[in-house]
């Protein structure tokens, strides 16, 4: 290793964590290792959480986390500031998630969503118990978790990613469209089908 390029670890407290993304990106581009580390700290949980929700597996999420920040570092010059850094980051994680998936050829029983899965008359089940009063921790038992995992894994990736970005991560419809390079009607249509599909998968949790 070239001694000139070895990372120096300063113990001196850096005010870096108070700097805005744009400034850290600029500093990181100019070779400031600490600026990049600060960006990693700021966004690693978002990247890890998102990839975990996509692949429902901690090891794969770890792998995607590493691949993503390696790609971010290599492509930092390409970030043009026209979008939020988080939007750009999400698009890189998405690509890495999908690539890792293809690499492994792990797609399990996927369903086709070409036809909407709603059956006529399938929703005549009266009222639903007031689930809003039940704390999430009480509901979230092992059985329900595993049902949520298997249900979302049956959803094709293109639909799953829209559902996770919009409904779980709370990105706007517009941001989701930008991240996935889709039109807004396409995002809405996938979102609708994904929600309906997942709701059908959880049908027995709805009627009690």
């Amino acid at each position, binding site marked *: *290793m070239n001694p000139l390029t070895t990372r120096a670890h300063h113990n001196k407290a850096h005010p870096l964590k108070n700097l805005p993304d744009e400034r850290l990106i600029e500093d990181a581009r100019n*070779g400031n290792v600490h600026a990049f580390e600060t960006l*990693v700290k700021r966004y690693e949980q978002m990247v890890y959480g998102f990839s975990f*929700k996509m692949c429902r597996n901690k090891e794969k999420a770890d792998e995607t986390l590493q691949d993503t*920040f390696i790609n971010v570092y290599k492509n930092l010059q390409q970030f043009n500031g026209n979008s939020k850094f988080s939007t750009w980051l999400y698009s890189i994680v998405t690509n890495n998630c999908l690539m890792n998936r293809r690499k492994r050829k792990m797609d399990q029983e996927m369903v086709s969503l070409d036809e909407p899965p709603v059956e006529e008359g399938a929703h005549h089940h009266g009222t639903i118990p007031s689930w809003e009063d039940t704390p999430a921790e009480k509901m979230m038992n092992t059985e329900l978790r595993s049902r949520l995992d298997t249900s979302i894994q049956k959803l094709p990736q293109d639909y799953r990613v829209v559902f996770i970005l919009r409904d779980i991560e709370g990105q706007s419809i517009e941001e989701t469209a930008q991240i996935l390079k889709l039109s807004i009607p396409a995002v809405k249509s996938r979102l609708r089908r994904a929600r309906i599909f997942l709701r059908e998968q*959880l049908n027995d949790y709805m009627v009690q």
Partner: protein
Amino acid sequence: MKKTQRHTLNCRSVYKHICENLDADIDSAKCRRIRAHIEECENCTAYLDSLKKTVYLYRAYPTPLVSTNAHKELIAKIPFATVSEKKRRSLG
């Protein structure tokens, strides 16, 4: 033929748009009609509620945290030297 068919077909057209209603209240005539229907229709109210519950359950699913170890491994894998070396070369 089911006697509820007229009603069901009406509900079906509501289902098509019901999801968008989960997002924003768009104040169009179409959305007002949909909202008016939902308010009066038990089936659609229950269905909308079940869609909200679906999203709620996925949101409530706990997300694991990045461990200190995973963070260290990640930092160790960033090719800091390579890129700054390139930059230094291109500058010099």
